């Protein structure tokens, strides 16, 4: 069992990493998609994962809340620890993991229900206490969407624009009260203005949440993140992490030649 209660400050304050990846390799069947990964995620920071296509960024992100479990033939070696609890220990229930580590996907994927129902859905199935109207309003405010939709809560979420839909998906994830929010290229389907709104929102959310974002967009990583992990592909096509540092260091003073080539646009 995970010895952790949501919203207990003593653990968050404790002197350890919220997420720690220890010697992790991931496989699809016999193909090794990610190898020998070690990574420590800081709480209440935004960590960006960047790298060329096929380097395993999304695979790594989805490993954090065990979304890869649905992929046939996938398995993971090593440990991913959440407050020192191995998420891949046999007794851990992946459903419980996903309640604490939420996710926002590449393409906005609201349920074909009303705006209100979209936000309330996760809170309801997880038995989040409190008045549902209040929860919906509060999370929509947190997601900077309230003012735009407060008069249309009963309208279909699919009537919203792409950027609004994505903020709704963020609100929906927040309503479950996770500790970490994983974002898998959340702006890749959005226009530049909607993208900036999401980035501002991430900054505000990082006060209360730990955010890990995969992005193809290096400017986005540079603008919006505190830490950056650069991944690339080895000659055997396995994804490896080249460098992990503060975003400032990665973009101004990279240690590895491959990072430098990538961020200066010479590769990828």
């Amino acid at each position, binding site marked *: 069992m995970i010895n952790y209660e949501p919203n207990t400050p003593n653990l968050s304050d404790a002197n350890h990493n919220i997420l720690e990846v220890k010697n992790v390799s991931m496989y699809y069947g016999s193909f090794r998609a990610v190898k020998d990964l070690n990574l420590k995620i800081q709480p209440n920071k935004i960590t960006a994962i960047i790298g060329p296509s096929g380097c395993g960024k999304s695979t790594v992100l989805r490993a954090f*809340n065990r*979304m890869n479990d*649905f992929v*046939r033939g996938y398995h993971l070696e090593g440990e991913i620890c959440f407050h020192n609890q191995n998420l891949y220990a046999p007794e851990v229930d992946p*459903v*419980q993991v*996903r*309640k*604490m580590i*939420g*996710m926002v*996907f590449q*393409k906005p*994927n*609201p*349920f*074909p*229900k009303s705006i209100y129902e979209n936000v309330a*859905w*996760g809170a309801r*199935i*997880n038995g989040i206490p409190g008045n549902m109207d209040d929860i919906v309003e509060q999370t929509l405010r947190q997601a900077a969407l309230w003012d735009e939709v407060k008069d249309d809560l009963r309208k*279909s979420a*699919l009537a919203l624009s792409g950027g609004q839909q994505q903020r709704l*998906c963020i609100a*929906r*994830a927040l309503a*479950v009260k996770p500790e970490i929010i994983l974002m898998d290229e959340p702006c890749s389907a959005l226009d530049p203005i909607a993208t900036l709104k999401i980035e501002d929102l991430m900054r505000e959310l990082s006060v209360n949440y730990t955010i890990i974002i995969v992005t193809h967009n290096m400017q986005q990583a540079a603008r919006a993140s505190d830490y950056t992990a650069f991944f690339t592909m080895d000659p055997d096509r396995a994804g490896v992490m080249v460098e992990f540092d503060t975003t400032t260091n990665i973009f101004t003073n990279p240690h590895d030649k491959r990072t430098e080539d990538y961020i200066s646009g010479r590769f990828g």
Partner: protein
Amino acid sequence: MEHEISKHLVRQTAPVVTSSQEALASKLRMRFRPGETLIMGFLFVCGAISIATTLGIVFELTKESLLFFGKPEVKLIDFLTKTTWQPSIGNFGVLPLVTATAMTTFFAMLISLPLGLSAAIYLSEYASQKARGILKPVLEILAGIPTVVYGYFALTFMTPLLRLILGKENVQIYNTLSAGLVMGIMILPLVCSMSEDALSAVPRSLREAAYGLGATRLETAVRVVVPAAFSGIIAAFIIGISRAVGETMIVAVAAGSGPNFTFNPLKAAETMTGYIARISGGDLAYDTPDYNSIFAIGLMLFVITLSLNILSRRLVSRFREVYE
């Protein structure tokens, strides 16, 4: 002289332009593609045949039914409200046949809707590749069994079983419950495979959204996937009902022969289709009440299934949860 020169020049240049333009124009010219025309014609004929057949059936049913309703002794109000059906001696109340059809259909749906939908949810949301590889062909075999076999299955297996459970004195040899239950088994693969198609068409991203919020497989299936596929599932249900209303062989064999106005499913009663099958199977003189009545009942069946289809279209557009 100048004139000559210019003429000469024109002659030299102009034909070049013309010929290249002509070549382009002829390249772009509309082609005659006999294969395309042939296929188009063939496909149109295929569509037209099915429409023509439907129109022909409606015409024939209406024509013969009008003969029936045109008789002085037949009154539409009696036909729809009286509870005795004996056309040869002048009792034209269709209700006994309708209640029998309603009962067999009800029991068929009682079996096929929950089981069909559950099986569809299992196949689309839970089953491993291997389990699905075994289950789907088995279900398809179930769909391929001739209905007369189901009829005798009802008569020689389901009825004795019911008599064993509920008591011989309570259950007649022919009864609508047994026919209805077996009909439900027959319709199950249809409901299941149509529902499964609807469920599988729900995009993976919606399931991921639900899982990402900490939903279990059951919560995802019941609260996201099924509502998103609702219109398709309704369509499956309505087609299942139409199938049950129109099913003939099982009820002809196992439900009873002889109209009986009863709501007791353990008693014999003849359905609309069963009546048509029995009457048309015997010696039948043209333009007798018996003969004409089967067309009236056929028309009524047609109206019922048509209204069900229209209802299903309404429901589908009403409850559609569009996911792009």
